[in-house]
């Protein structure tokens, strides 16, 4: 098999383009953690304000 034939066959061995799911996965991971961190920050500020307000 010549080098050219190998190059022509290459597209069939291409890595699948799953970048859409890769992005979606990291949006879900970082989004969930950031949402919880934000929830804690808001809750912490409220707890801090209430204990200082007394």
């Amino acid at each position: 098999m010549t080098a050219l034939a190998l190059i022509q066959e290459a597209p069939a061995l291409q890595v699948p383009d799953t970048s859409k799911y890769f992005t979606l996965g990291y949006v879900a991971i970082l989004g969930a953690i950031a949402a919880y961190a934000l929830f804690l920050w808001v809750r912490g500020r409220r707890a801090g304000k209430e204990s200082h307000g007394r």
Partner: protein
Amino acid sequence: MDLRKSSLAAWGIALALNALALSLVFGYAPVERTMGPVQKIFYYHVPSAITAYTLFALAFVFSILYLWKEELRWDALAHTCAEVGWVFITVVLLSGPVWGRGSWGKWWVWEPRLTTALVMWLMYTAYFLLRLFSGHDVRTGRIAAVLAIVATFNIPVVHFAIKWWGSIVHPGKVALEPPMRLTFLVSMAAVLSLGAALALQRYRIGLAEAEKEASL
């Protein structure tokens, strides 16, 4: 060092490690040949599961200490670990189906690892809801401690599900190329440090709220 300074230091370490881990995931780790870029979900999916297991194991220890010593600080620590662990097992159950859809074309398959992980999530959701809606009395603390102890026995079931019942989607052992291994180890440290930072912050809030309740 007081709790506030420890919490700030933990956040500093967690943010630095996560910046490094994400730059490795996005720019350094090679693309896996059969699954493509979606395989890179692995670098946060697996460490999130290990972080959840660690926090649930700590909740188990603190729950036993609470039932034994009846000191509120053990209950507060158990509550903190179970809640933050629940966040990480939720991350696992969000990222897993996205990885599955990208690599084998389905969002969900009723196979042993996924099913037992869902059962684990439901058990800690029950714990979370119990703490949320049942007040802060001693009786609730005891029931929650028993629930956390019982739920921990699901960790080995989830972990060994593949060995015991087999799996069509989860490999038992994965061989990683050196750049993949490095990225995985950095991500592991990054996610564990994030778990520690969130747990410290949650514990501080718990203490502030308990102080507020005691002064009422």
